[in-house]
C-alpha cells in the first residue's frame, strides 16, 4: 500500500517532467527560424566587422594578424577625435531637440485629441513610410540655392539674391537629423503615455494636484523610461548616419560615418573603417545603456 502511495507521485513527477521537456523542445523548434534570421543577418556581419577591426591593412590588402593598431591610429588621429566630438554633439542636439518637440506632441495627441488621436498619431508617423533618402533630399529642396526658402525670400524681396548659406552647414545637419528622428521619439513617447490610465490623472487631480504638478510627479516619472529610449534611439540613428551629412552637410557638416564610408570605399582600408564603425556601435550601446539606467522608473501597471 505504501509502495503505491509513494510510487504514484513519482510516476506523476516523471511524466510532468517529460511533458515540460516536450513543451520546451517544441518552443525551441518554433523559435529556430527567428534565431537563424538574427544570427545570419545581425550577428554574423557584426562579428566580421569586429574581426576586421583587429586585422591589419597592407596597402589595401587585409592581413589577418591580430593587432590593436587600427584603434590606436583612430585615437591618435586629430581628425577622428574632432569628428567624434562633433558627431556626438550633433547627434545629441538632434535627438534632444527632437525629444523636446516629439514628447509634448505625443502628450497633446494622447491627452487632448480625443477621437482624432489615432489619426493625429498616424499623421506624425507618415514620414516613416517615405524612403530615408527622400526625406533627407526634401531638405535640399527646401534649403538649396534654387530651393523653396530662397524662392520665397527673393520673391517677397526679403533677400536680393538666393543664398547658399542655408545648405551645407552643421546647423543644416542638426535640422535634418532632428526631422528624421522626430517620428521615432514620438512613437516611443506615444506608447508610454498611452499606457497611463486616465484614472491615474484623475486620482492625482483628486488628491489636490494641479495639471502641472500631476505632470511632474506622475506623468513624467511614468513616461520617462519610454521617452529616454526614444531619445537614445534618436541619438543612435543620428550618431551613425552618413547620408545626411553627405547630402546636406558639406565639409563643415562631415560626421564620423563619413570616415567609415571613405575607408571602406576610396581609401580601401577596411580594417580601419571597421575599427571606427565598431567604435560608433560601442558608443551607441554605452549611450543606450546609460540613458535607460538613468531614466528608469520602477512601475508596473496592475
Amino acid at each position: 500500500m505504501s509502495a503505491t502511495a509513494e510510487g504514484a507521485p513519482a510516476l506523476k513527477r516523471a511524466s510532468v517532467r517529460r511533458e515540460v521537456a516536450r513543451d520546451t523542445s517544441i518552443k525551441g523548434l518554433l523559435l529556430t527560424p527567428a534565431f537563424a534570421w538574427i544570427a545570419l543577418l545581425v550577428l554574423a556581419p557584426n562579428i566580421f566587422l569586429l574581426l576586421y577591426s583587429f586585422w591589419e591593412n597592407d596597402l589595401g590588402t587585409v592581413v589577418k594578424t591580430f593587432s590593436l593598431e587600427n584603434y590606436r591610429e583612430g585615437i591618435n588621429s586629430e581628425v577622428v577625435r574632432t569628428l567624434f566630438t562633433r558627431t556626438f554633439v550633433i547627434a545629441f542636439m538632434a535627438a534632444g531637440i527632437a525629444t523636446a518637440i516629439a514628447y509634448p506632441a505625443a502628450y497633446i495627441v494622447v491627452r487632448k485629441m480625443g477621437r482624432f488621436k489615432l489619426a493625429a498619431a498616424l499623421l506624425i508617423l507618415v514620414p516613416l513610410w517615405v524612403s530615408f533618402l527622400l526625406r533627407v533630399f526634401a531638405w535640399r529642396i527646401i534649403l538649396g540655392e534654387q530651393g523653396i526658402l530662397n524662392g520665397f525670400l527673393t520673391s517677397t524681396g526679403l533677400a536680393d539674391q538666393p543664398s547658399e548659406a542655408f545648405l551645407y552647414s552643421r546647423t543644416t545637419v542638426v535640422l535634418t537629423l532632428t526631422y528624421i528622428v522626430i517620428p521615432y521619439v514620438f512613437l516611443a513617447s506615444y506608447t508610454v503615455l498611452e499606457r497611463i490610465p486616465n484614472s491615474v490623472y484623475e486620482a492625482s487631480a483628486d488628491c489636490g494636484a494641479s495639471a502641472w504638478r500631476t505632470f511632474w510627479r506622475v506623468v513624467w516619472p511614468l513616461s520617462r523610461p519610454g521617452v529616454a529610449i526614444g531619445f537614445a534611439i534618436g541619438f543612435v540613428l543620428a550618431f551613425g548616419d552618413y547620408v545626411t551629412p553627405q547630402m546636406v552637410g558639406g565639409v563643415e557638416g562631415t560626421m564620423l560615418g563619413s570616415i567609415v564610408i571613405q575607408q571602406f570605399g576610396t581609401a580601401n582600408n577596411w580594417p580601419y573603417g571597421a575599427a571606427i564603425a565598431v567604435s560608433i556601435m560601442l558608443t551607441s550601446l554605452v549611450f543606450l545603456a546609460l540613458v535607460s539606467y538613468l531614466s528608469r522608473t520602477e512601475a508596473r501597471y496592475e
Partner: protein
Amino acid sequence: MTSSSGSVPDPVPPRVELAPSDAPPKLASMGQDRSRETILELDRVTKVYTAGEPPAVDDVSLAVGEGEFFSILGPSGSGKTTTLRVIAGFERPTSGVVSLAGRDVSRVPPFKRDVNTVFQQYALFPHMTVAQNVVYPLKMAGLARQERDAKVKAMLERVEMAGFESRRPHQLSGGQRQRVALARALVAQPKVLLLDEPLGALDLKLREHMLLVLRHLQRDTGITFVYVTHDQAEALGMSHRLAVMNNGRIEQVASPDDVYRRPATSFVARFIGKTNLLECVVENGRVQAGGLTLQVAGAPPTGRFTVSLRPEDVRIGPDASGLPNRMTARVRETLFLGHEQQVLVEAGEQTLTVRASGKEPFLPGQEVEIGWWAEAAVAVAETEPPQGLEDVPA
C-alpha cells in the same frame, strides 16, 4: 382561470385604514433626515455628453447630510457614476449647481475641491510606494513633513496596512490595493468621500470583509460617504439613506427600510428585492386587479395604478386567515431553498410569488389560502425600465 377564485373578500370601501395595532410593524422613516447639516447638495443637475442623446444625468437634486453614509444605487447606465464624477469635478454639469458646504463648486476643478474619490480600479500611482501614494494628497496640501508622516502612519494603521509602506501597488493583492486607495482618499480628511463601486473587483469573501471595514471607517472618521453601487445588498446594508437611480433620474431617496417597504416606483420595487407588481384599476370604488378585488391602503380614488407586493408579505396556508386580503389560489410551482421555499401561485388572472417557510410542503395543483395586509400592497408610480443594459430580472 381557476375555479377557486370565487372567494371574494367582503366589500369594503377603499382607502379605509386598518387600526394601527393590527398593522404590520414599520420602522421609523429616515427619508428626510433633518438632524444633519447639509454638506453636499445637487440642485437640478443635468449632464449631457452628446447633444441629441438622452442625458446621462437628468435633473438630479440631492442633499447629503454631514457624516451621512449615502448610497447611489442603480443598474449600469443609470447615471450613478456620472453623478459621482460631477460631484468630484471630473465632469462639468451641463446645467444645475453642485454645492459643497454651502459653496457653489460647479465650476471648481477637482484639485481644488475638498472631496476625495476611491476609484473603481483604485488608480494608485504605480511608480510610488504605499507610503508615497498615501502621503501624496498631504504633500499637495503643503503639510509639514512631520505632520505628514504622522498622518500617513495613523491612516495606514487604521486600514490595517502598517508594515507595507515600502511596497509598490503591483506587489499587493486586490484587497490591499483597495485599502491603500481608501487610505489615500481619507488621509487628507475630505469633507466628502466618494466611492465608485469600490468593491466591484473583489471576490465575495473579501467584499464582505471590506464592507465592514468601510462601515467602521465611516463611523469612526465621521466623514460623509457617497457610495455608488449596483449591488442592492451593499446599499441597503451600509447606508443611512440611499438614492435609487434609473435612466439618469433619481426615482427615490429614502432610508433603506423605506426604499424596501415603500418603493416609490415600479422600477425601485423591482430593482430592490423581489416583488409582485399588480396592475390595478379602481371600479365603482373597488380596487380590481386581474380578476381579484383588493384592499390597498392609500389607493387613489379613481384610475389605474400599480401596486408592489413583496413575496414575504403574502401569508400562505392557515396564516392567511383573518387578513383583509384573502383568497384561494392554486399552487403552480415550488422552489425549495432550504430555510424557505418560493411558491408560485395563481389567483384570478394573476401569478404571484410567495415566500413560505420550508417546513410545510406545497404541491403543484394544490389549492391554498393566501392573504396579506392592506398596507403590504404599496401603490407605486409606473416608470420606464432601464434603457440599454437590462440588469433587472423582468
